[in-house]
């Protein structure tokens, strides 16, 4: 499903973050990417999520070469296929949960009459329907992350990309969020999680570690 070939990413001309790295992720997998701080985990995630571009290399998604796409096509691709979950949730402040979930639907040009149902469905799926009209500023960390996951799921993407999704949560919420990811994964959505927490990574089917710009598959067992 996702194939990255010979990915080169260099910052400031000398800082090689990804050194002709390769990665292959199959549809429906739950994958963890680990590594020390600054090794390029988030950069790799951003490249997979098409918010960043590689300097060299090719990116295939469902056998289509995304790296050739232009900006508008990339945005459309991202809207349709990728859902983002961030460590700090990145919900739009001052808006309600409902409004936050409506934004990606709006960008995806989903008709108004369908949106309400889609939002309610995803809120139910994540057991946060009671938060529908709450301002996101008034939610707890766990609630915010659930809403962020709901937003990532709203357009029914093929891949969820989660950058340290539990990094800001306590143990209880971490367990709940990981359960949620497992459930979503069971329904067929590919999940890629960047984490430095080996316990979290251990819950994934595959674990890749970035070492010296190369992506190496690790067996944590």
């Amino acid at each position, binding site marked *: 499903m996702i194939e990255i070939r010979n990915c080169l990413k260099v910052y400031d001309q000398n800082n090689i973050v990804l050194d002709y790295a390769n990665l292959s992720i199959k549809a429906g997998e739950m994958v963890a990417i680990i590594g020390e701080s600054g090794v390029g985990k988030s950069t790799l995630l951003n490249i997979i999520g098409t*918010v960043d571009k590689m300097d060299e290399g090719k990116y295939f998604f469902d056998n289509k070469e995304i790296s050739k796409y232009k*900006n508008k096509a990339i945005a459309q691709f*991202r*809207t349709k296929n990728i859902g983002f979950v961030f460590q700090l949730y990145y919900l*739009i402040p001052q808006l309600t949960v409902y409004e936050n979930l409506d934004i990606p639907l709006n*960008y995806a040009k989903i008709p108004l009459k369908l949106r309400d149902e889609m939002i309610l469905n995803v809120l139910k799926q994540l057991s946060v329907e009671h938060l529908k009209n709450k301002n996101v500023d008034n939610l707890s960390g766990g609630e915010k992350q659930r809403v962020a996951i709901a937003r990532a799921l709203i357009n029914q993407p093929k891949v969820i990309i989660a950058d340290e999704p539990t990094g800001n949560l306590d143990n209880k919420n971490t367990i709940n969020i990981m359960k949620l990811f497992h459930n979503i994964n069971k329904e067929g959505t590919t999940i890629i999680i960047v984490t430095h927490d080996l316990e979290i990574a251990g819950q994934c089917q595959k674990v890749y570690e970035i070492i010296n710009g190369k992506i190496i598959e690790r067996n944590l067992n």
Partner: protein
Amino acid sequence: MRTILTIIGLSIGTIVFLIGSTIVDSLKMNMIEKIDEFPDNIIIYQDISSNSFAYLSKMDHNETITPYNKVKVSDNIFIKNTQYIINYDITGTSNNFVNSGVPGSGEIPFSQINYLSGRVWSKKESEEKQLVVVISKYTAELLFPGKNPLEQFLLIPGIGRFKVIGIVNDLKEFAVQKDFPTKENNRLNLPDADVYIPYTTFIKIVNEKEIDLEYGDNIQFVVQKNRYADKITEAIKKSDFQFELSQLNNNYTRNKILLTINEDLQSFNIIFVSIYTLSIILCGFIVMNTMFFSIKERFHEIGIRQAIGANKSDILIQFLYECGVYNFLAVVLGVSVMIFLVSVFKIVLINHFIIYLSIQSIFIVFLVSFLQSFIFGLIPAIYATKIDIIEALKFE
């Protein structure tokens, strides 16, 4: 708070324009109101084809003559209020009283009457049947030698004291022109001493005093009737009456006065438009500044929006829309304030001055506001589309 201040700033710009346009429009309205008291176009026409019809007898007067009669003279010109002018023809004075004499003769288009000083009577004076009079230069010399006749009183026996409000040129010169041959005029070398009073005043005099107005009486009136206007039309058609249409555009026609007023107010308009243009530019920079601040503040949000599916056009439209909303609210606020102010002034200045806030001006501010939001919002909005998503997501 910044947004609110921006909206207030923009609405002040709107108010500046509306105040300017309201002043200009109100001045114009008030001037037109005053001018409307004048007859639209005045023409007098004396027919010499018979001995009797040119002089109004009681019997003549009983014929229906509508003061506001509108007569089509040609395809282009409508003459209103024809009957407002009466040629009260005198030939001399005795003890400052008007004496009898040979009535005025010759065909005299009113376009030949030019006001040398003073004014014609207003509609109000005419309708209220006030005793005002316009006299010819020759009459003035006869009755008020060496004096300024304006505001003086002309005593007509058995009728009353008429206040002199205007002096016009003598018409005898015209009467002797070969194009307008006279039939019975034994005094071609002297101008007639003409006196003009409002028709309505005349009617009042006739009704109340029951003056028997016969040829040879001390006082003789010549009045224009509807049928003469028809004759003019007919004469024009036959081309045996060289009627210069341009002669109607003398210095005292309503249209010409309106034209002059419009020209004068145009200068005001230019000043206010200049001020408004400056205020638009100033407000535009305020909008731009606010938009840049807003984008800077929402730098991170822009990154989030891009990450969840927004493309560049979505971001562009979002910020243009927000800019448009600011401007729209500002205009609504400005217009509301102006409507309130105009209402207050209308109450305060009731009957003294017409305050007029035109729909056209309101439409203009909405249109300009729309254009302003687009022009001055475009640069910040384009800037927002160029924000790097990674940088924006990192930005805290």
